């Protein structure tokens, strides 16, 4: 739906000039009111006339008695913006401004970030009043990022209803709570801080009933975090019978796999582009 306040105003003014049985009036309206609060308009003169009120998403037409206070209810004035009042040939304008902060729309990006990376988490907060009007008056928005018992806090003033910040990810992996708050309003988002690529991989080999049991030491990124569970680690053994591979999944930092028995095999391990140590297997060692 589109509004054309100019056209509506002209129609209103023409209509108000056509009203009969009313003497000339003088409108008195405040310069601004807060959204959701009522308004009293005083108009001089006598007789009845038609009142027109046109504003953002609002169009009111009402028969009123001149010379008496005209009430506009809180429900009539919920949307912030410029309003035009027209009555018996006279017109006036006033502004409805947003009320106090009641809600926040919070955009936190991205949902997953690597640990120990500067300015990687962005938060954008839009502050709204009770009637979803953007609060244009400067407000303080507090951004808090909590992970692993540590909290980083940063306050920003809104400009045109928007506050923005960028924060570093922490050094330890985990689920970070990212909260934006202003006045009574508070919104929480979750940002997962995840370990980076393995820094190095080291494996050990031992004989078992099925063949060779291969097991890595705990695999960590260069910040010391365990690499996430499920990350693929490829064990490869090459001997005279060919090449054998197992794509093992890391569980609690460790990957392990069984490869067939061999008397003379070269065994290697890798994850993504990171290559680990190599073992020359001679039957039982």
């Amino acid at each position, binding site marked *: 739906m589109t509004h054309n306040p100019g056209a509506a105003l002209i129609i209103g003014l023409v209509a108000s000039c056509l009203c009969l049985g009313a003497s000339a009036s003088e409108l008195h309206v405040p310069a601004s009111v807060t959204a959701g609060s009522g308004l009293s308009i005083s108009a001089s003169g006598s007789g009845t006339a038609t009142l027109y009120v046109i504003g953002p998403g609002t169009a009111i037409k009402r028969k009123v008695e001149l010379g008496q206070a005209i009430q506009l209810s809180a429900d009539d004035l919920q949307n912030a913006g410029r309003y035009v009042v027209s009555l018996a040939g006279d017109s006036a304008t006033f502004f409805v401004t947003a009320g106090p902060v009641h809600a926040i*729309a919070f*955009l936190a990006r991205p949902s997953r970030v690597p640990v120990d990376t500067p300015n990687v988490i962005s938060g954008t907060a839009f502050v709204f009043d009770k009637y979803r009007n953007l609060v244009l008056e400067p407000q303080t928005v507090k951004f808090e990022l909590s992970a692993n018992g540590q909290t980083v806090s940063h306050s920003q003033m809104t400009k045109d209803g928007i506050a923005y910040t960028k924060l570093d990810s922490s050094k330890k992996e985990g689920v970070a709570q990212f909260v934006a708050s202003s006045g009574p309003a508070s919104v929480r*988002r979750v940002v997962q801080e995840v370990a980076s*690529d393995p820094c190095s991989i080291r494996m050990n080999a031992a004989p078992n009933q099925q063949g060779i049991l291969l097991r890595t030491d705990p695999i960590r990124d260069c910040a010391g975090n365990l690499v996430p569970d*499920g990350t693929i680690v490829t064990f490869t053994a090459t001997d005279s*019978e060919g090449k054998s*591979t197992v794509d093992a999944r890391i569980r609690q930092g460790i990957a392990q796999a069984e490869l067939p028995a061999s008397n003379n095999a070269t065994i290697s391990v890798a994850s993504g582009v990171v290559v680990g140590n190599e073992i020359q297997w001679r039957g039982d060692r």
Partner: protein
Amino acid sequence: MKRGLPIAIIVLTVALIAMATIQPKQLSPARSPDGAVRSLFAQVKARDYAGAFSYVANAGDTTEQAFAQDLAGRDGGLRTYSSLQAADTKILHATDDEALVRATLEYATAVGAFYNTRDLKVVKQGDRWKVVWPVTKQANVPPQVIQENYLRWDVITRGARDDWGAQNVEAPRVRIISMNAIPQGNNTIIVGEVENEDTVPGFVSVGATLVGASGKVLGSETSFDKISHTLLPKEISPFRIDFPKVRLATVNSVRMTPNSLLVPASADPVIGVLHQRVEVDSRGRHVLRGELLNESGEIVNIPHVLATYYDKSGKVIWVSDGYVDQALLPATPVPFAVDLRDDLAPQVQSYRVTVNQYMLNAKD
């Protein structure tokens, strides 16, 4: 004479119906080595495994049930979803009482035509030829408990009641780490590898668009099943995209579009690929052989093997794939073989095999 013709027609009709409905209890004996093989597979095609078993010479070494399972499949494997379409036979060598016959079998399966070649020994018993059926003794896994520490990813996605600022969890980052366009006759084939660089699993597909002279689009295709769609963190899958009837010489550029979706997934099962080696098969073609070993406790019904071949500079030069028509039972090696283009075989310096899998009772 007027009555004679109708009576003759009625008698003939009854005789034809009787011939069609009354089957001989005894199948006709095979009088030649390839006739025995053909007769056996004719009964298999009609799903008459008892009839097919009557052409087996070594009936004492196996049971009719095991023979039927060998041909009809078991455990929800691909062969249980297939039917024999054709069997071509060729005598490789023969004496008076023994012969070796090659049977080339074509199955219609849920994933397309499936070919199987068997070299069967045929012996003469009395006046009839019978097939010495190769008995495959499937190792029975002893009763045991296999401890599984199931690793799963579940996803809570944005709901209808969330406010508009609530972000959804992002799709995993995937990257095409290599790509190569190669000609094959009048066709253009795009091969390469895609990696899930993220820490969450993803459902991945790769599309390609060929662009010709003056920016004209020559065709768009996707990797379809020539890729492992579910990629765990740091997992690399090969992909192959075929453009039939598009000559590589007409292609100016290729636009690649990797797509990924965040999906719930399980890290199991782990399938080992053992004893991989490139060989020349009995038909003189290059194949990559090996064995698959299911290291988990659940049956993998339909394994799908994807092989990536690299040249000496580490560039992907070919990707081939093949379904295995047997289910993978826990801790039981199953052989596989995938084709390698003979013209590319001399350039192959190394290769990598990955296994895609379909499970009937999969949790995801």
